[in-house]
């Protein structure tokens, strides 16, 4: 017996694997299997689609362009002059109250935060609070790394430099009385950005960290004075700064500015805009958006519609297949 085994030393192993006889599931994509699957998928999609559509419809959105391109728009006068501060008022009325927490966004159009050279123009280490990079910002920030006096710019780079600097105040107009609507500016940035990714230098007085550095060229105030009302909201962990630094994926975007926790009741409102940010040169637009949100985010009817369409298509196709199947298959299987 031993001898026999030796003789057949070259004999291949007779296993399911080597002989390619592994039990295999053949994806039987014939109509018989697929039709029920299609019906199921279709129905599920239609269900999701309806839910999405209804949800999306329930979201209320108010949107106002305040770029001031047209003559009659309130901020038209701010577009021409090169004054450093120009204030204009945008009046509007809310007919149906916006319930729940209302998110107040500012929006920019034709603004390419995803432009490659723009998007690399920052120094993550500097923004992480590493003071070594305060003195010598990364080359990626170029040409916004040093000012004309060879002073390092902190925060460096084009993204920080181009930070949106219009400010808004919302007033509820009750006859002649204008009540300031309170804004909530806390926690509008990502938790990870605020707690992990961005850090102020761990120096007692924030201002000292910025010695021998200059503020970005377009900025009015240095980074440590961004929010005069709340000392903890300064430096790199300023919420507006964090929101701005998270670059938008698409050229038409909006960014969260503040929350209005009590909602917007019916009434007339006036939005006081400190108009600073120039967009007309590149044909950009500025807008403000008031919106409440649902579990699926902001208002978007596309998803609901798409689900409905695809779901109906699945159901339709399964019916077509059923007909085809009945015509072709059943005679043969007899």
């Amino acid at each position: 017996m031993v001898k026999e085994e030796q003789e057949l030393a070259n004999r291949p192993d007779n296993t399911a694997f080597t002989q390619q006889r592994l039990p295999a599931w053949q994806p039987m994509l014939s109509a018989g299997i697929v039709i029920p699957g299609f019906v199921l998928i279709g129905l599920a999609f239609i269900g999701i689609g309806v839910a999405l559509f209804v949800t999306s419809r329930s979201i209320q959105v108010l949107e106002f362009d305040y770029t001031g391109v047209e003559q009659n728009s309130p901020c038209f006068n701010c577009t021409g002059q090169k004054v450093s501060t120009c204030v204009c008022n945008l009046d509007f009325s809310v007919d149906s109250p916006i319930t729940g927490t209302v998110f107040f966004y500012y929006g920019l159009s034709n603004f390419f935060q995803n432009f490659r050279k723009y998007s690399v123009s920052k120094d993550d280490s500097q923004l992480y609070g590493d003071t070594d990079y305060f003195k010598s910002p990364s080359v990626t920030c170029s040409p916004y790394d040093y000012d004309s006096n060879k002073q390092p710019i902190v925060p460096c780079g084009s993204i920080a430099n181009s930070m949106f600097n219009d400010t808004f105040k919302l007033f509820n107009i009750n006859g002649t009385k204008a009540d300031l609507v309170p804004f909530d500016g806390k926690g509008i940035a990502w938790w990870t950005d605020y707690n992990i990714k961005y850090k102020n230098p761990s120096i007692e007085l924030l201002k000292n960290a910025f010695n021998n550095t200059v503020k970005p060229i377009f900025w009015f105030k240095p980074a440590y004075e961004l929010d005069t009302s709340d000392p903890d909201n300064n430096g790199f962990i300023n919420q507006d700064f964090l929101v701005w630094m998270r670059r938008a994926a698409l050229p038409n975007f909006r960014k969260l500015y503040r929350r209005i926790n009590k909602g917007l009741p019916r009434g007339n409102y006036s939005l006081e805009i400190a108009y600073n940010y120039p967009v007309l040169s590149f044909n950009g637009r500025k807008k403000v958006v008031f919106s409440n949100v649902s579990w699926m985010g902001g208002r978007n009817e596309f998803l609901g519609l798409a689900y409905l369409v695809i779901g109906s298509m699945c159901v339709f196709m399964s019916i077509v297949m059923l007909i085809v199947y009945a015509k072709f298959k059943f005679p043969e299987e007899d």
Partner: protein
Amino acid sequence: MERLHWVQHRCRQLLEGNAGRGWYSATDGLPTKTSLDAHSSPQRVSGKRRTVFARHGPHQQDYEAVSKSYQSNAIRTTKYSLLTFIPMNLFQQFHRAANLYFLFVVLLNWVPVVEAFQKEITMIPLLVVLVVIAIKDALEDYRRYLFDKKVNNSVVRVFCGKQNAYIVQRWKDVRVGDFVRLSCNEIIPADMLLLYSSDPRGVCYIETANLDGETNLKQRQVVSDLPLQGREFSLESFRGRVECENPNNELSRFRGYMEHPGGVRVGLHNNNLLLRSCTIRNTETVVGMVVYAGHETKAMMNNSGPRYKRSQLEKLLNTDILWCVLLLFIMCLTAAVGHGLWLNNLKDPVFQVDTETSPALAGFYVFWTMIIVLQVLIPISLYVSIEIVKLGQIYFIHNDLDLYNKQLDSRIQCRALNITEDLGQIQYLFSDKTGTLTENKMVFRRCSIYGVEYPHEENARRLEVYEAEKNEEAGRSLTLKSGCSGKSLSCRSLSCQRSSVSLHTLTAESQEEEEEEQLSNPIHPRTNAFCSRVAKDVVPDPELVRKLNWFCSPELALRDGSSGTPSSLELTYITDFFLALAICNSVVVSSPSQARHGVPEARTPLKSLEEFKLMFQRLSFSPFTALSTLPPPQMKGSPLNFTRRLFARGKTGTFTPTNSATDWPHLDQESHLEPTNLKREQDLSFTAEGGDAGQTEHRDTENEDAKTSPARQDVEDLIRDLDCESDTNEGLLYEAESPDEAALVHAAQAYRCTLRGRSAESLLVDLPGIGSLTVQLLHILPFDSNRKKMSVVVRHPLTGHVVVYTKGADSVIMDLAETPQGAEQTQEIYSHIREQTQIHLDGYAREGLRTLCIAKKVVEEEEYEVWLKGQLLAESSIENREELLLESAQRLETNLTLLGTTGIVDRLQEEVPETIEALQRAGIKVWILTGDKQETAINIAYACKLLSPNDQLLTASCGSRDVCAALLEELKVEVQRGKASLTEPTAAGNHGESSSGSVAGFILVIDGRTLEWALQEELKSQFLELSQGCKAVICCRSTPLQKSQVVRLVRDQLGVMTLAVGDGANDVSMIQMADVGVGISGQEGMQAVMSSDFAISRFKHLSKLLLVHGSSCYSRLANMILYFIYKNVMYVNLLFWYQFFCGFSGSVMTNAWVLILFNLLFTSVPPLIYGVLDQHMPADTLMERPELYQVMQSSKVYAPYVFWITVLDAFYQSLVCFFVPYFAFAGSSIGVLSFGSPINASALLIILLHQVIESHTLTWIHVLVLVLSGASYFGFVLVFSVFCVTCSPPTNPVGVETLEMSQPLFYIVCALTTVTALLPRLLFRVLCNTLHPPAALTSAQMDKVGSERYRKKMQCWNLSLSRSNTLPVCVDNPGLEPGTDSGAS
């Protein structure tokens, strides 16, 4: 001056030596050796030889001067060393264009203005590929290193001068000039000259299995005229100098001479050389002197490693890669132009970074940036993946049990690693006949001697029984066969017994034989000595036995002087014939008890030897000492006269044909009669004289010898007698170089003419009735393909004459067998014999037998002396030795006397007809290219069902070009006419030919001479056209060169995929020429195997190899490549679409690591599994329906339109995959990476699920790999988004995925995207599977529903095919289809 030359030599040799160190490189330019010693080499110093002295002993100084340049015996087959590994491996890897491209991309990323990612990230793919390949190479090399180490450190006993004894040394320390002593079963460490053998005759046996796989023993001879032979070898006595040629790779050639101190030169040839890696067998001790060592040995120089071919699919793939490059170029150009325009329209935006670069220049930069961003489009890992997949495929082919031959314990060998998928596209198959279609196990079938045919009816019956037996067994179980033991005539009953035993003992017939052989021959297990039982047990022809028997017992003839008694001349013919069969060969004899022995002690002859000698002298004849030298014999010779005449001749040593043919004239008239009639006539006419001779004989011998008279036994008894005798010889084992030889020796043995042993000088032969005789062997002129014959020169044991026995191809022998000068009647007899033999030859050929003619020639002593001088001269010459030997041989082989001819059956291998039928059904055109004659070839073609009875044979045979041209034209017209008449009755029978093999077709039979014309430039197109109209082509009488020319013609002119299969050296050129060369490791050594891409052991393996593995491999690889391209196009386009929203600036919405790893890690294993494990159809189905092969053959799986469909699908999916998220997030506050996250996730899902749709089978391995791939992506991005805090700017992913995946919108988007993207492909597949697959593209999908339904479908398909080719209409027109279905089922 001389020294200067030497320095030059040294330098060159050092250089070459280094270059030649490379792995398996042929070291042709090895050091040429110039002798420095003035006194050692008085004659001209040629650069083509080497001189060897003994390393120790008196010539030590000479040795040192000469041998410095000779390589030591250490071998190194590794490519790299530790130091050179990295540079050399990198250098080799950068020979690939793909790697260069990616190196270029990496370097591009170092240019700041176009930099897209971090520098290290772009290097990753290249690094990974390089490292993977480098690890693979390193492992391979390490294995070789270990092997080398093992070999180099093996030990052997080498003579040491200081201790004057043999001491144990390692192989690597052996040097040229060393004396090495080896014992039995030791492996030879280097090429050595055999100087001493413990065998008294100075021979030793080696087994060359390690070298060429041949297991039969080969005899090697001690260098002749060594004074020291016989004694224990001592070195002091060896003072010779060896001159031989420089190392070369010709295994069968070695030339040189040994010069003794006295100036005597002894020729050295291949017979004296022991080759490295062979094994010493059957010899106790041998001593040899190393002449070539290490890499200079013939074994090492023949080691050429695996072969690399480029497959057809890879060539196709390259064009598609070019399309991808074009696509990439277009995309980059679009981005460049778009970016330029976009920048141009911007006026001083806040987000502008760089205002100095002009838009045009920025556009130019973006072009290069985009090349980096979209680099994945050119699949770098594709080439690596293809290699890995092919390794996997090879693994499965190699492990297939169906391709395993139990008898030989051999698997299929895949020598070429990268053309597996070519097996799936073969369109033309060129097959050798002998040994490929047939067993190459020759069995003696019948013979003709003296113009008389002996039909061997019983023998024929035996063979038939054997065949039937085989078939019967085959019917019972496909794998189990029982052999007919065939020991006796009652073969049938015996086999019945055998088949009644349990299945366990029923094993393959030849395996049984092998086993039995092994049992009986424990010394040489697995010796394949052409000794299959069916070949051994020849049943003698009764008629011939009677004649022979008469010879044994002369009184038989004396008393029974009636019809059937042969003439004495005929008797000598018969005896000579069998003597020639027994000795005219190079068979090695051994018996299990005494191993391989030379000449054993002669047994006591049954009769007095002297008497036989006397008789033979009387009866022997010589054409040139014909009757003319003597006075015309008394014509109407009385017995007395005749006796006197015999005696007279016996005394003078001359002889005449003993027939006094008074009545020959009337025989002449009747020469057209049937051979049997004629035989009777002859017999009658010679009765009287034969009787006389017998009488004479009897008178001389009857007193001494009474026991050898079997009296009047009937023929059956005689045969039994013979059987008994042969039983005593049962132990003898013959090991022949060619199976024909063994068959003939066995045939002779059946007639009790037994070869008992051989040595260099003599042969021991048993002759019927005489007993053992020692035949002095003077020369062997071995077979060569130019002469087509072999001869032995012996001193006839009975007559004492020098006799040449020649055996060879009929064409050659018949030409050389000249009608002797001399008396009329002699001439008449000879011409009569010739005519008759020719008739028999033709008959044999028609039966499909291989024919060999046997002839003899008696050489006068003086003539022999003259020839001998020339022969010795030729043997000892170094240059032109072959030519001289050939010339010398030809000088001797003239004026032959034809003795007779043999017909040998070469049985078909099992399942050859089925295989050929399957191949033809698979649409493969099978051509047979053989060196055999036309009749034999046609016969075999019939036997293997290449020809069916209603096929029409077109024979092309002509002598000149013009005739040939006309003939081809004529045949072409005929084929066209035939085709027309064939198609007319069945109007829609266009497909008939391909779907069924039963339709009569044309078979072109062309012979070598005509082929010569047909292959010429002017006629080859005609020839091709003609052959395309034919079902099959048989080229007979073709030379190896012609074979390869035919293959090349078809391959190049028709542009088809060709496969050549053969087993012998004559098929090597054909095998190398074809796209796929398959070698059959059969009886004829390993040359074919060495040059082949795949080596199988049986022809029948071809069907599984092609139909299943070929087709699977092709389908797998093609699908994998398509999937790979799809995957890349799909993913890269996502990035491209994003460019429209980022000002074509080259931004990506994904983290760069994820981007790079997406292809390299997350989606790289599934395609590999897909390429290795996918089964587009079950193996059984593929075997049962060879027609399915045609789908692959026409390369429809990987047709250009499939490529474009794939690319379009990829475009669609990427559009969906990008724009669904786009619309879902448009206008929102989505960030760049948050936008990319669902896109990436759904791309991954789409890509993985796409494979599930495309897979034909899914096993747990698939599922595991798919799940792991998906999990690895999500795992990676989650971990990355948690821990990557400041890394990877600008696409820092911290917090992105964790946030995204916590939101329902992410999943909503992913689900919608995935389903929408896969919907069309899914629908397409479902429709294909629901409807009848209308085209070949989808027929691959048909089997999804199980083989039962599948078969129905196939029937349908065939039916509809044969009706018309309007299947696409069927799809649109459902009404047509049910009818077809019901008709089929």
